[in-house]
């Protein structure tokens, strides 16, 4: 077992080294096969592990001591339990599909860069696996920063483009801010508990050791980390920009896996979070407000990937809402389903973009329904799934979260439903403008329009199926299902408290949300199936179109002032004050030199006069023996 688990992590690493070092050696075929093959391998191993966990329960394996010194040690342990094994499947599964997809999508790149791309991708999978498999927060943190690195590298994959690099940098730095919080939380744990292994931290007795302030602080700091990684307010702005990366990357990293790391981390440490009322409220509020904010923005975006990006942010908001209201299983459920349908949507978008020769503006599309049948169908399924229309997967997961939210506080539910409605609206706005109506692009684009190769469509189909049926793993008791997932997660999150709602209310809520969702999506369809919407004129429209001017705000309030501050330090403090003091001393010496030497004026008369005066001074010194010497002796003694 130890080996298998080890190799789940190692395969992608091998792939990374293989492609990274051999980037000038192998031809694209080899690269593609190897890269995908390694991920598939670790997918297979993951399945084995999963089954093993199913049968035998959680496993922790120790490899070596990462840090073992000065009385505290951080072992390099990996742990597979229900939660991580699920994530394993998602990561490696979706991962391998996306690798497959990429082989075709990236085929225009020349070999070395092709290799680089897959190397990054493999490295990402490696770090992600480390993140979910680590048995303590430090290993998690290693993966945590690792994925950040890979997302940086992949967003900036086309490195000659300055804006892409800027986006990459932005992503990394914002993640870093979050990571700082995470790091501080880890230190706090170390100081209080002396260990960071889940096994010893996430237990009742260690919980007892911590005061409420400790718990609140730790959880909040952890949440800051999650904010960064999972693009929550206020650290969400990097994710839309991250769409600069190749589309498969957006699908894998910025939709399916990396961005859900925050959810994984919080679910992992749910004991802590449940113990702090305050934090839960914060999480919930941040989550829901992110969901709404992103949704409103998504309504007015015209870049196909931007829309998806904001919808991702919004969906992540839902997950955090779920976490905030204690519906951990719901959150995880949504993670899984979202992984499927959002990956699907991105890949679909990718296929569209591929067909449109890297045209991303939906206003120049339209009527692709006939040209790209498979893409169209799968995309539609994705949209329905995300819109939360039964019986597609999105419905179940979202509904579970909403139900829990209602139980916690109806306002959450209300907002959630509004968000759901907007989701349905912008998704179908996107769908309609892209696939319905007639084609609005240039003729030669129209001439080249064609369905993508099978390497791209196959993942689409598989993911479509998955996002259609994935709901099955969490059919609520209400519908006669026995929520398999929540039973799965019992060892992690304990028995889900029975949602204290009568069935009738549940049905009512469900109906309401579904009804609203469907009606809005219909509105969206017939509003946009004819024409795309123009550059907005209304104030509100502009406001949304410009993403609430958040980037501008950050720039004005944070970036510029800091920049100016740095400039002030460099130009004024450093140059004039600190260095000035040093040089000033030298100047003083030279000045006094110029003055003192004038005493030596060449006149014997003066010299002798000075001698006489010197004698007088000495005598005076000695006369005032009594007075002066007291002073000096005190000085010397």
């Amino acid at each position, binding site marked *: 077992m130890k080996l298998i688990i080890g190799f789940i992590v190692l395969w992608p690493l091998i792939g990374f080294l293989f492609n990274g070092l051999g980037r000038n050696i192998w031809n694209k075929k080899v690269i593609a096969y190897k890269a995908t093959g390694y991920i598939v391998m670790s997918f297979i191993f993951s399945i084995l592990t999963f089954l093993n966990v199913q049968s035998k329960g959680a496993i922790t394996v120790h490899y070596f001591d990462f840090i073992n010194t000065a009385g505290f040690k951080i072992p390099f342990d990996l742990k597979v339990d229900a939660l991580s094994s699920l994530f394993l499947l998602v990561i490696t599964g979706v991962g391998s599909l996306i690798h497959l997809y990429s082989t075709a999508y990236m085929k225009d790149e020349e070999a070395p860069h092709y290799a680089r791309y897959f190397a990054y991708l493999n490295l990402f999978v490696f770090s992600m696996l480390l993140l979910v498999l680590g048995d303590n927060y430090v290993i998690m943190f290693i993966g945590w920063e690792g994925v950040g690195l890979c997302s940086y590298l992949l967003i900036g994959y086309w490195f000659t483009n300055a804006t892409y690099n800027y986006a990459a940098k932005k992503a990394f730095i914002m993640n870093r801010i979050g990571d700082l919080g995470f790091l501080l939380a880890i230190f706090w744990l170390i100081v209080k508990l002396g260990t960071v292994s889940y096994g010893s931290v996430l237990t009742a007795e260690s919980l007892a050791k911590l005061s409420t302030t400790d718990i609140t602080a730790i959880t909040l700091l952890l949440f800051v980390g999650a904010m960064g990684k999972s693009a929550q307010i206020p650290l969400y702005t990097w994710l839309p920009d991250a769409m600069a990366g190749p589309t498969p990357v957006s699908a894998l990293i910025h939709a399916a896996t990396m961005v859900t790391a925050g959810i994984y981390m919080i679910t992992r440490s749910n004991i802590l979070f449940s113990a702090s009322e305050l934090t839960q409220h914060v999480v919930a509020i941040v989550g829901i407000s992110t969901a709404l904010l992103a949704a409103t923005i998504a309504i007015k975006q015209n870049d196909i990937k931007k829309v998806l990006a904001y919808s991702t942010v919004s969906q992540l908001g839902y997950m955090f809402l779920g976490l905030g209201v204690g519906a951990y299983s719901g959150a995880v459920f949504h993670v899984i389903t979202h992984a499927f349908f959002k990956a699907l949507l991105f890949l679909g978008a990718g296929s569209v973009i591929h067909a449109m020769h890297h045209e991303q503006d939906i206003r120049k599309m339209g009527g692709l329904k006939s040209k790209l049948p498979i893409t169209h169908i799968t995309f539609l399924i994705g949209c329905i799934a995300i819109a939360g229309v039964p019986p597609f997967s999105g419905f179940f997961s979202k509904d579970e979260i909403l139900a829990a939210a209602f139980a916690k506080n109806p306002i959450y539910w209300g907002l959630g439903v509004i968000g759901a409605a907007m989701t349905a609206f912008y998704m179908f706005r996107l769908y309609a403008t892209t696939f319905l109506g007639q084609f609005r692009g240039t003729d030669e684009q129209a001439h080249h329009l064609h369905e993508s190769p099978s390497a791209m469509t196959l993942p689409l189909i598989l993911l479509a199926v998955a996002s259609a049926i994935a709901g099955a793993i969490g059919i609520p008791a209400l519908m006669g299902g026995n929520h398999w997932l929540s039973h799965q997660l019992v060892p992690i999150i304990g028995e889900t408290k029975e949602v204290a709602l009568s069935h009738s209310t549940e049905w009512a809520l469900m109906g309401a949300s579904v009804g609203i969702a469907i009606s809005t999506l219909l509105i969206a369809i017939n509003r946009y199936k004819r024409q795309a919407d123009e550059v907005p004129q209304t104030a509100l429209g502009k406001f949304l179109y410009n993403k609430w001017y958040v980037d501008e705000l950050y720039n004005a309030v944070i970036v510029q002032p800091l920049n100016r501050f740095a400039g002030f330090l460099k130009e004024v403090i450093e140059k004039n004050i600190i260095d000035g003091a040093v040089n000033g001393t030298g100047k003083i010496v030279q000045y006094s030199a110029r003055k003192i030497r004038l005493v030596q004026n060449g006149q014997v008369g003066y010299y002798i*006069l000075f001698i006489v*005066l010197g*004698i007088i001074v000495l005598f005076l010194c000695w006369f005032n023996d009594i007075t002066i010497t007291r002073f000096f002796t005190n000085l010397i003694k």
Partner: protein
Amino acid sequence: MNTLEILFYALSAFAIVSAVMVLVSKNPIHSVLWLILVFFAISGHYILLNAQFLAIVNIIVYAGAIMVLFLFVIMLMNVKSDKEPQKKMIIKFIGVFSGGSLLTLLIALVKQTTQLEGKQVLMKEGTIGLIHPLGKALFNDYVLPFEISSVLFLSAMVGAVIIGKK
């Protein structure tokens, strides 16, 4: 007030006056002559103190040899009295002032010296000033310095040669 005291005061006054004259007289030659008078006065003091040997030597060496040497040199360069420029008044004043303050300091200090209270100087008695004991002392205890001072003269001689030779 016996004759000794009278002599003492007279000589002192005379010495001081002529010393001052050395400073104030414009013409260098006059200064030399005044200085010679000072030396005479001092020799007079020596005689008062019954140090005849020193008195004679003082007359011979200083008033005789040294001062004549000065005189020669001055005449040799015949520095005109009117030619000699004066220092600025302020400088002079500072000079006088600092000299005066030095004097006051020293005097104040001597006044404070308790050990000197009532110490008398032996006038016109005592034999130590005479040639006989001096000679004894010089060639017994002080023979080494006496010899070594010859080195001084030798070096001075060499020096004079080096400097003086064209």
